[in-house]
Each structure stands twice: as structure tokens, then as C-alpha cells.
């Protein structure tokens, strides 16, 4: 009963946000530039939340997330441009191939732990980038241009919501608990009947396919893909990782908040031109000093905790 109610409230809130964006866009308050930033926020939410499943909930430190993102971006673009496949089908194909490559990478790589796994996944990301760089069919080093603009804010928003809900549901099911068990203590998990390899690969595949979907949305939004480190290479992976760590490993709401903040923040800092790349890292360092476990530190922001906070503030107000 209570679950249904919070579900309804969330649905209403999310619908309200969408309506507000469309309304302000119509009134000319939000320029196309703003809507683009909001769409990028949604795409980044998908990326961070899906990486959280791998790094935060299953405890497998991967920094090759941009590789899966690139697979989704390029495959879907190739399908829509060269083969005239409907966009949604192309998104699904991108997600699927990213998921399959998640399994292909996961099976051998997940024998490794910690730093070693991180390096192996970093290598995987670079392999994908180099393959794309040398594939003429997707533009090679020139980049892939002429991709139709199929992604709208509404679609990115919807898929971001689906991602968060799906991963939230996964984590709070038996499958997610098995992943948590693997993160906490692999030996104990095994002795309780949890096939740790299976769940590592499952988390990897699931995370990768959402990243693939994010890639498909991205390429059909910007209409151009460049095989550079910052767009599909390790810099992109690091970007996603920073958002994840800043929001807090193992917190979905943390991931969402950090993805939004860190997508918008650099835009605000544009005014400071050359100081931008000084202020941004300083902010990160400050957060890591004062909240070393991330903004949300493994906790979740829920409606009831928000309400409790509001009540606390109110009673506090009455006292003073």
C-alpha cells in the first residue's frame, strides 16, 4: 500500500518535471542549449547508474564504461544511417551488443580483482576506441557525421527513468542481494550458494547494455561521434567514474544527483574561462575531503526521508 503511494508520488513528480521543462521550452525560457544540457544530464544519469551496478553494488572496479557507451553509440548510428533501421530498434541493438561484449569482457576479466581488473577494463575501453578509429564504415578518424537527430529530451528522460527503476528493482531483488554478497565477501557468498562469477558477469552485462543504450541516445543527439579519448575513450570513462564516486558508490540517488550536478556545473563555470579547470577539480577535492564516501555515502534519498527532513526543519523552526 505504502509502496503504491510512493510510486504514485514519484510518477507525479517526474511527470511534473517533464511538463515543466516542455512548458518553459515552449515559452522560450529554456533555450535549445538548456534542453541539450538537460538531455545530456539524462544520458549521464544512465551511464552513472549503470556503472554503479558494476562498481558500487557488485564491487567490481571497472573503468572501461566508455567502451560499452561507444559500442552502443556507433552500432546504433551505423544501423540508422547506413541500414535505415528504425531508431528504437537501433537503440535496442546497441544495448544488446554492448551487453554481449560485457559478457565477453567479463568472463575473462572478472578473474581479476581490484587494480588489475581496473587496468584490464581500461584496456578494453581503449581497444574499442582503436577499433572504431580504424573502421572506415563508421568514419574512422574523421568521426561519424550525418547521424539523424532522433533523440529528444523526452526520450532520454524516459530511458533514464527506466534505467534507474530497473537497476533499483534489480538491486532490491534476490539477484541484487547476490551481487551485494559478492561485493561484501566472495567466499561467504559462495558458501551460501551464490555463483559469484555468474553474478559478476550478470552485473557487467546489465550495466554494459544500459551504457550501450546511453551511447545510442548520445550519438543521435549530438549527430556526430568523434573517436577521441574525451568522447568515447578513457577520459569519458573517468568522467563517469568521477560522477559515480562523487555521488557515492552504492547509492542510486547519489548517482543521479552527481550526474546532474557534474553535467551542469562545467556549463556554469564557462564564464570563468581559464579558471574552469581549476575550480572544477577543487570542488571535487573538497567533496572528497568532507564527504569521502560520496555525497550520499551509500544511502538513498527517499520521499519519507525528505518528509522527515522537512518536518525536522519545521519543528526546529518552531523551537527557535
Amino acid at each position, binding site marked *: 500500500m505504502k509502496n503504491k503511494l510512493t510510486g504514485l508520488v514519484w510518477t507525479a513528480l517526474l511527470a511534473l518535471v517533464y511538463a515543466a521543462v516542455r512548458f518553459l521550452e515552449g515559452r522560450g525560457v529554456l533555450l535549445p542549449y538548456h534542453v541539450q544540457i538537460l538531455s545530456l544530464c539524462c544520458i549521464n544519469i544512465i551511464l552513472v547508474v549503470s556503472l554503479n551496478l558494476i562498481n558500487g553494488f557488485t564491487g567490481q572496479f571497472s573503468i572501461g564504461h566508455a567502451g560499452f557507451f561507444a559500442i552502443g553509440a556507433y552500432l546504433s548510428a551505423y544501423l540508422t544511417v547506413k541500414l535505415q533501421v528504425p531508431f528504437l530498434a537501433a537503440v535496442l541493438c546497441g544495448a544488446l551488443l554492448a551487453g554481449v561484449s560485457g559478457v565477453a569482457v567479463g568472463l575473462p576479466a572478472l578473474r581479476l580483482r581490484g587494480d588489475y581488473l581496473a587496468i584490464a577494463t581500461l584496456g578494453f575501453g581503449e581497444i574499442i576506441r582503436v577499433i572504431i578509429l580504424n573502421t572506415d564504415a563508421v568514419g574512422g578518424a574523421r568521426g561519424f557525421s550525418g547521424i539523424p537527430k532522433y533523440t529528444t529530451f523526452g526520450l532520454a528522460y524516459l530511458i533514464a527513468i527506466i534505467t534507474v527503476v*530497473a537497476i533499483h*528493482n*534489480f538491486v*532490491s*531483488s*534476490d*539477484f*541484487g*542481494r*547476490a551481487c*551485494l*554478497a559478492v561485493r*561484501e*565477501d566472495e*567466499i*561467504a*557468498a*559462495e*558458501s*551460501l*550458494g*551464490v*555463483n*559469484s562469477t555468474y553474478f559478476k558477469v550478470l552485473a557487467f552485462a546489465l550495466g554494459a547494455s544500459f551504457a550501450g543504450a546511453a551511447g545510442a541516445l548520445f550519438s543521435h543527439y549530438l549527430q556526430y561521434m568523434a573517436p577521441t579519448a574525451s568522447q568515447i575513450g578513457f577520459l569519458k570513462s573517468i568522467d563517469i567514474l568521477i560522477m559515480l564516486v562523487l555521488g557515492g558508490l552504492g547509492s542510486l540517488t547519489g548517482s543521479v544527483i552527481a550526474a546532474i550536478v557534474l553535467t551542469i556545473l562545467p556549463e556554469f563555470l564557462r564564464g570563468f574561462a581559464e579558471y574552469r579547470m581549476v575550480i572544477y577539480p577543487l570542488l571535487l577535492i573538497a567533496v572528497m575531503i568532507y564527504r569521502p564516501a560520496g555525497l550520499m555515502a*551509500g544511502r538513498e534519498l527517499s520521499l519519507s526521508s525528505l518528509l522527515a527532513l522537512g518536518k525536522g526543519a519545521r519543528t526546529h523552526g518552531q523551537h527557535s
Partner: protein
Amino acid sequence: MASTAELMVNNLCVQFGGLKAVDEVSFALKPQTLAGLIGPNGAGKTTIFNALTGLCPVSSGEISFNNQRLTNQPAHTIARYGIARTFQNIRLFKNLTVLDNLRIAYHKNRRYSLLCGLFHSPAFQREEAQITESAKEALALVGLADKADLLAGCLPYGEQRRVEIARALMLSPKLLLLDEPAAGMNPQETQDLLELIRELRDNLKITILLIEHDMKLVMNLCEKLFVLDYGHLIATGDPKSIQTDRRVVEAYLGGSLN
């Protein structure tokens, strides 16, 4: 022959490089026995547990459980055959709640599919409610019903041990292996534990094999004892006969008693 004994261990050897941690050990456990595995430090007791539960490779020999071959099967498969264990250095999921620790152990009985999990379908809701229910029952069994929502790592040592036992019980095991369940407990806690273990065996009709250094507990509780020394099984029998066994006394006190 084999069908009367639940657990059969035949000529088990576990070798780490040049060290034979377990050397030609054979024993059998009948259903619903409460047995103890004792021996000086480094005798190979925990290694036997690890071999039984698939956590360390068996060099040679055979292990079977209800005529099911266990030798060198992966740990998660062995758990499915109904063998559960606790660890000497408690291995709870410390950052998760006590309830979640137990719910994880329901894993092998889960019926709903991944899709049901992703959509939180009615089948999922029903089964999750049932999982929580059985986790709470298992907690009540070890007397920790009121600690369900605390983080496992925050509990005092003795209670963590009990949670670990409850978690093992969530597997609805036929054989329960307890690795030093009384380690670090005070006399009162040890006494409570003794009663708990006896109750578990009597009420749940399971076989229990435990490793323990607290001889008072072992002698009071166990019906059958296996004594290990330097990887060899040196004596088998009831507590009375073990106490007077010459080789056991030698292993514990050194030298002969002449």
C-alpha cells in the same frame, strides 16, 4: 553401506605445495549426529571444512554426501546439496543489515525470474514477503529477532556468531559445519550456545559437525569425536573413550604418560 551414512570421507588428502595439511583422512557421519572435530592448532581441522565445502581443492580422496559426489565441486554447488557452514573468523556481510544477511542465503530457493525481479511483479512481491518471513523465523531461532534491522557489523561478537549460524540455517541444510562457534565467547554465552546447538539438532533434525577448542563444550555436547593431529586422523569415538585415548593425550600434552 554407503546409504546409511550421510557424509562419507575416504582417504582425503589436501596438499599445499610440499605440505600435507590433511593426510589420508577417512570418516563417516550418520544422519542427525552431533559430532566434533578436535585437535591441536594446525592439525588441519579448518582445511577439512574447506575441502568439504569446496573452498579448497582436494588433492586426492573422495567426499560424498547422500551418495552425491562432492569432491572438487564449486562451493556454490555444494551449498545447494544442503551443506552450510560458519567461519572461524566470522564472515558476515558487515555493511548489510542482519535481515539482508539472512535473505541472501535464501538465494538457492528463489523461484522468480530475472524479469520478475526487474519489474517487481506480483510473484516477486509474494516470494519476497515469504523470504523476509523465513529470515525472521531463522533469526528468532537464534534469539535475535529484535536485531533484524541493525547492520551486521555493529553487533557484538557473540551475536555475530549467532547471526552467522542463522544465516547458515537459511540454506535449510542437512549438514551444518560450525568452525569454532564458541571462540571468543564468555562462559555464559558458551553455555547458551551449547543449548542452541543441541536445540537445532533436535528440532531441525540436522547433522552437525563442529570444530571447537573449548573442551568442556565439546565433551558435553558431542556424541562422536574425531581427533586430528598433523593432518592425520588419530582417534575416533565417543567423548569418554577419547579422553582416555593414549594418542590423543600425547597429541595434546606431548610425550608419553608412563
